[in-house]
């Protein structure tokens, strides 16, 4: 490798790297702009009038531009690794699709059950016979394979009396449009011999001949001339479902579900708002974890810090109804950050000076914080006349100002932008950040180099706490506008995934937070719009986590490349990426 370095002219290297950098910026910028345009286009169906007709459309555009900026950062920061992150997500989605498909294999079952009617239509004079089930032109109905019934009806054989020469039509049809049962009908004589059968109806029959028919799936035997006087049987049951019907139904249902998952969150402005507001919380939590994990401290304290931040900001909000918002809001921000700082400092100090395992201590402290929150809420903050456990609604001055009408997208967007910038500054541009990175890389090396590792470990956990405290403030004063039980809704731990997916890079966290929030929001709409339960979405999320863990394998295979081209510029890039991860 020595020879290669001396042979290669240094200029060519730097020129190549210059162009690579340019290309990278261009790819990043282009993807950012494309995503912004795509989101705007889907939101407003591509119509400029519709956009300008929406209140606060400028702010929507601004927020979407910020989303684009997050994409840009993602591409520029992770470079080739960005593809890997996307692949991880795509593979997880595909596996999720498979799961959805499997769970939808029963969706064709609806053709096998439902309310139905049967009728023998004839112009002939009905025969008087009280023993038979059907009379000409009288409907009779029931429900096939009704779920959760001890003995469901799976077929019917109803008798009717006919005379020789009567022209009858036998109908078996769904009761209404809600019932999708696909029927067949048979005409049998007294001995049970089959005289005629049908599995479907023609368009004409549905539209013109018989008013009662609902669709072509109904079954009709039209104009059958009875051969003799006597009792006949109308036999009907749902048709057997063909395998291809089962598969194609499952496929189309899964497609429907995934359409809801992938496009649902940007269909309408209010849905888009759900995505953005969730993303803000997740990004804050992701940042909190990314900062702490960067120092190799496996503190899971964000949950507790979030509750503490929410509680403090809630108490302040409830007790200052007359302070103008311009003063109160900054004060609440400061206070929630401080609360998080203190609640992060505790496990930090325990770890640094008493050697308490941060994983255990933070989990315990989370427990303390959530119970304390509940206690205060229950006994102090709940108005006496309230029907459920929640504080009073905050007054307008304590609520983060909304920037997009009919959503809960608030100025938190800007607070978040500042937090991201400061986190980046901290990690990459301050001596403390250097200490954090070095401790994360090799604690003993940091000790050897004279870093006060105890102080840094304590601080990094407290700083993570600040960000988590802000997330609590966002939930309390931005989204719920009151304190409620279970305010974090388990988002805190999903912050871990966001941080890991971003490879602990604070500039990538915004993207992964958006992505993850998008999947979460999409999941909600998938559940709402399609026949897929939230559990499937949870599975997709779990698969993503699994794939991230399995990425160690990818790194393993990448080591092959390493030796091959050790001193090419590409190598430096690859290695750096490895270093980030």
């Amino acid at each position, binding site marked *: 490798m020595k020879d290669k370095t001396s042979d290669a002219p240094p200029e060519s290297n730097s020129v190549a790297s210059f162009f690579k950098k340019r290309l990278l910026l261009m790819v990043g910028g282009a993807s950012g702009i494309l995503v912004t345009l795509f989101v705007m286009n889907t939101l407003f169906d591509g119509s400029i009038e519709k956009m300008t007709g929406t209140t606060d459309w400028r702010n929507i555009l601004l927020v979407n531009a910020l989303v684009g900026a997050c994409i840009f950062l993602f591409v520029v920061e992770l470079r080739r690794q960005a593809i890997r992150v996307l692949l991880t997500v795509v593979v997880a989605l595909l596996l999720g699709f498979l799961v959805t498909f499997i769970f939808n294999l029963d969706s064709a079952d609806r053709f096998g059950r439902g309310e139905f009617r049967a009728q023998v239509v004839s112009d002939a004079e009905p025969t008087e016979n009280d023993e038979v089930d059907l009379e000409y032109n009288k409907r009779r109905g029931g429900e096939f394979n009704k779920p959760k019934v001890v003995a469901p009806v799976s077929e019917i054989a109803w008798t009717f009396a006919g005379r020789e020469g009567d022209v009858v039509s036998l109908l078996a049809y769904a009761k209404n449009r809600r019932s999708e049962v696909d029927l067949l009908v048979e005409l049998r004589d007294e001995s049970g011999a089959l005289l005629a059968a049908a599995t479907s109806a023609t368009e004409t029959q549905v539209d013109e001949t018989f008013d009662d028919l609902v669709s072509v799936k109904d079954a009709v035997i039209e104009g059958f001339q009875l051969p003799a006087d006597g009792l006949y049987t109308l036999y009907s049951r749902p048709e057997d479902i063909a395998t291809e019907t089962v598969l194609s139904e499952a496929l189309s249902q899964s497609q429907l579900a995934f359409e809801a998952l992938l496009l649902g969150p940007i269909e309408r402005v209010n849905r888009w708002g759900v995505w953005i507001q969730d993303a803000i919380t997740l990004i804050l939590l992701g940042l909190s974890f990314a900062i702490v994990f960067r120092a190799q401290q496996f503190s899971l304290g964000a949950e507790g810090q979030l509750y503490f931040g929410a509680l403090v900001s809630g108490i302040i909000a409830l007790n200052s109804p007359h302070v103008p918002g311009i003063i109160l809001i900054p004060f609440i921000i400061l206070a929630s950050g401080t609360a998080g700082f203190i609640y992060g400092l505790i496990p930090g100090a325990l770890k640094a000076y008493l050697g308490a395992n941060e994983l255990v201590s933070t989990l315990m402290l989370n427990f303390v914080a959530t119970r304390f929150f509940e206690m205060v809420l229950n006994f102090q903050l709940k108005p006496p006349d309230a029907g459920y456990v929640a504080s009073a609604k905050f007054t307008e001055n304590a609520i983060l100002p909304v920037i997009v009408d009919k959503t809960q997208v608030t100025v938190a967007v800007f607070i978040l932008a500042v937090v991201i910038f400061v986190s980046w500054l901290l990690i990459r541009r301050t001596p403390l950040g250097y200490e954090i990175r070095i401790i994360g890389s090799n604690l003993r090396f940091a000790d050897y*180099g004279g870093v006060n590792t105890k102080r840094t470990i304590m601080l990094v956990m407290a700083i993570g706490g600040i960000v988590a405290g802000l997330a609590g403030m966002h939930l309390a004063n931005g989204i719920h506008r009151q304190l409620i039980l279970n305010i974090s809704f388990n988002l805190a731990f999903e912050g871990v995934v966001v941080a890991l997916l971003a490879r602990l890079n604070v500039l990538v966290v915004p993207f992964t937070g958006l992505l993850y929030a998008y999947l979460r929001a999409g999941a909600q709409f998938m559940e709402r719009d399609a026949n897929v339960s939230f559990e499937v979405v949870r599975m997709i999320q779990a698969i993503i986590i699994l794939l991230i863990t399995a990425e160690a394998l990818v790194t393993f295979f990448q080591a092959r490349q390493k*030796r091959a081209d050790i001193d090419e510029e590409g190598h*430096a890039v690859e290695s*750096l990426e*490895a270093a980030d991860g």
Partner: protein
Amino acid sequence: MPIVETRSIHKIYPNGVHANDDIDFAVEPGEIHALVGENGAGKSTLMKLIYGLEHATSGQIFIRDQEVQIGNPQDAIEQGIGMVHQNFMLVDSFTVAQNIILNRETKQGMQIDFQQAVADTKSLSKEYGLAVNPDARIEDIPVGMRQRVEILKALYRGAEILILDEPTAVLTPSETQDLFAAIRNLVEGGKTVIFITHKLKEVIEISDRVTVMRDARKIGTVKTAQTSERELARMMVGREVFMQVDRPEVARGGSVLHVADLTYADSSGHQLLKQVSFNVYENEILGIAGVEGNGQTELAEVLTGLRPPTTGEAYINDEQILGRGPRSVREHQVAHIPEDRLTNGVALWSSIDDNLIIDRYYREPFTRRGLLDINAIVENGAKLIGEFNIIAPDGAIPVNALSGGNMQKVVVARELSSSPKLLIAAQPTRGVDIGAIEFIHQELVDQRTRGLAILLISADLQEVMKLSDRIMVMYEGEIVGVFPNDESLTEERIGYYMLGAERQPPQEMERYI
């Protein structure tokens, strides 16, 4: 007819490292065959393939002209191959005899026949002149004897071919001589020995033939009688190597480090340093010789603030430095090349640039007005990479992409560029290739000539003798001798002190301290 032969052996590790590239290697029966090469040249891999610890990607292995598939060490042992690893594979709490018969026990019913084991050990020991005490526990016996136990263990399993992996790394000179005598005995008794090392002097002394490996390839096999150390070094490195360091005479200056009655006991109360007192002067390299584990590590770590002393003091230019942590020590212009660079000396996943500022990142020009100055950091990296000849495309790549030698150069570059008054260098060339050793040695000597005081701790006695102006011997946490490094001082003489067999009278020691 070779007794062991490999043909076109390739070994590619799953991570893509091509460790053996088309190796044709043959050992004649009854010879001592040295296998030399720098770290990472692939010699250990080749031996692992023969011993069944790794499997070849392609190629054939022949034992006594029969092609064999060696799936695991058990197969190798059945073929009469024994291997003595660098790190001994012994059960510390068992006796010597128990270790030797382990897994080959003679039983009487359900009971292991220990009398038989002791008897077997004794006869084996006598036969090959490998003196051991069958009833001693492994934890109580010295390293040299442990090694003999390992060899006996292999012989007890019927080894005809013995692979010794860097056997002298842990031995003192006189123990090495004992080992060589034992090896000659073995060969006379009809055994074949493959001897892995990177110490060329030993190769010349003991082997019949030498195979040199470099960068996973076999460079050649030569008769020892027809080669020289210099020639072998050239084959190993691929270019001319200057084995000698140019050490100009300079008068030493005033005392920089003064250590007085330093004692250190670990948490379990073991006295690891006992009343250690000495001085290190300007323009001087003070080398500490000693078998590893005699307090050298603790001395370096106490002096650099990584461990608190139990009692005693250390002064840099009359200022007490102990007990205030590593940063305080560093601010007194003490630099430290740590013994284990992977644990202490570098952060593997951080960039070279970041690794080069661990002792100075918080000062100007690296931090200005509370923010890191990235340009200054990158410039510092580029400057040191150039000055210390670190082979890397730029300072942004993580240290773990570097070879061992270049990693060590990163450490040396950082420590020497901090303009220290005192450098504590522990095992500065351990696990480093010859080219880098040469560079580091020259750098240390140059700095010393320019005025630096250096405390050199090394397990490699030749290194200590080559570089030091004075040599201090440590044995069981004590200083047992201090000598000026002149013509009269021999390795053998230091060896006696290293083993605790001799001790300098206090008056004489006083003269050189």
